[in-house]
């Protein structure tokens, strides 16, 4: 059953990609937990519990750990991102504003001004060294019915 659903999803995606210009690329990595580019950290992004409206400012949670899972305290972050399909950056300059508990940080000032594929890039500077990680998020309109 799961396999069949996956296949039908792939077909539907292909249909959309030929139909519209705004379609999200196939095989986009939408995982929100991954190793940083050089493998120094394991980073997890947690979206807000209630999905925000377009253009509504909101916060995410960043969980930072070493490659083997130990929480990393006292890290500094730079946040960047934007829409590769439209050639513009984030409408705001989000910041990691505080470390709520060991290795759990609050990312404030996030805003998506339109639907589609957004990149969220973190430059991490922590005790284990500097590394980067890029996440992909796809923002959609709510279903009309």
């Amino acid at each position: 059953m799961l396999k069949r659903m996956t296949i039908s999803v792939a077909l539907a995606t292909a249909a959309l990609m030929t139909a519209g210009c705004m379609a999200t690329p196939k095989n986009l990595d939408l995982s929100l937990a991954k190793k940083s580019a050089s493998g120094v950290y394991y980073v997890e992004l947690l979206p807000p519990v209630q999905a925000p409206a377009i253009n509504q400012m909101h916060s995410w949670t960043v969980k930072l750990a070493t490659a083997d899972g130990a929480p990393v305290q006292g890290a500094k972050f730079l946040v960047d991102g934007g829409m590769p399909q439209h050639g513009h950056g984030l409408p705001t300059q989000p910041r990691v504003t505080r470390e709520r508990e060991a290795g759990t940080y609050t990312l404030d000032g996030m805003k998506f001004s339109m639907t589609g594929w957004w990149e969220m890039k973190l430059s991490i500077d922590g005790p284990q060294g500097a590394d980067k990680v890029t996440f992909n998020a796809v923002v959609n309109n709510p279903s009309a019915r």
Partner: protein
Amino acid sequence: MKTRVIWAFAAVAAFTASVFAAQELSAPLRDKWTAEEVATIASMRLKVAGERPADFSNAYEQKAEAAALGRALFNDTRLSKNGQVSCASCHSAAGQFEDGRQFGQGVGTGKRRTMPVMGAAHAPFLFWDGRKDSAWSQALGPLEDPAEHGGNRVAFVQLVLSHYKAQYQAAFGPAPALGQLPENATPNGSDAERAAWAALPAKTRDGVNRVFANMGKAIAAYERNIAYGASRFDQYAEATVRGDARGQESLTHQEVRGLRAFLNKGQCVTCHNGPLLTDHAFHNTGVPPVDPKNPDRGRIDGLKQLLKDEFNCLGPYSDAKPEQCGELQFLNTNDAGQLGAFRTPSLRNVAARAPYMHAGQFASLDQVLQHYATSPKAAIGHSELARPGEKHAERQTIRLSATDIQDLAAFLHAFTGPVVQPK
């Protein structure tokens, strides 16, 4: 913006499932749309905008006394250097609260196209370059702009406190004691005006600024009640969402073809999204500058002005707490893409307000659409539009035929609705 967006993190699948199932529940509709298109059309309905969001920086915006004073100030030509210019001179209540001119015409001639008042209460940033972050702060700018009202705050504050004292106090309480004031003084004017301003005690300057800020807050309270009304597009969108076949007749076949192009090959909805048909953001789309030797730098300069503005959300005359000034706290000041970028205007009532773009460069919607079909190189900064023939990994070129342009131009007329304003 009460409607919540849906996230698709686990799989791209979330929005692609049952793509063609949208109209299954009802009688056959005249125009078929995919579920994703219906969701986009639904998100563009005016009613999705909901109540105008509160402006925490203006504690008086919902006060009737402030709105009444604001309306009087909006129409008072004494608030100008030559006694002939009011806000209403360029923002005419008889039309679209703009002037139909390429450049605003006040005491002098401005450099940009006048923007309409409707929709301002929903915008986080005002003016084409977003150099203001509230409607009340925006209203103060033209009063001291030498090309617009051409006046100064000390003269205006004295006028308000002599001609509108009772109305002012009804809205804002007792006016500060200002003592003896020079006839003209401001930190922004001529050498003499700036010298006169600098000579005032700090407490007096603060009192003048307070009354001046309240003038803006009163005007914003009036402007808050000026809004877009529903258009034929909104009727069509509602009918399409509800599965009402007859309701879809509110758009012609040509307009529906234009809507299809708007959502797909024209890529218009990318930036002209949501109920006000704007993403409230700033983009460089390569619109040709009026003076190629001295191109307008747009948002990148607007950012600098916004940050140093004493009347911004974090300033001493704002009623907001610092944490309520999210747009300023998280302002993106480090984006090279802001060079030559301008605010995405609403497309509501767009057919009723030629000419177009930040300096009225295009006389007609056809010319605007032709610009996007051509997607020229930007004269300053970099256009976000992929150029024809350009190989870009992610972006796709806008390709519009002559017929597409006609259909889109026809469709854009369907965004025209009434202007709702106080009687």
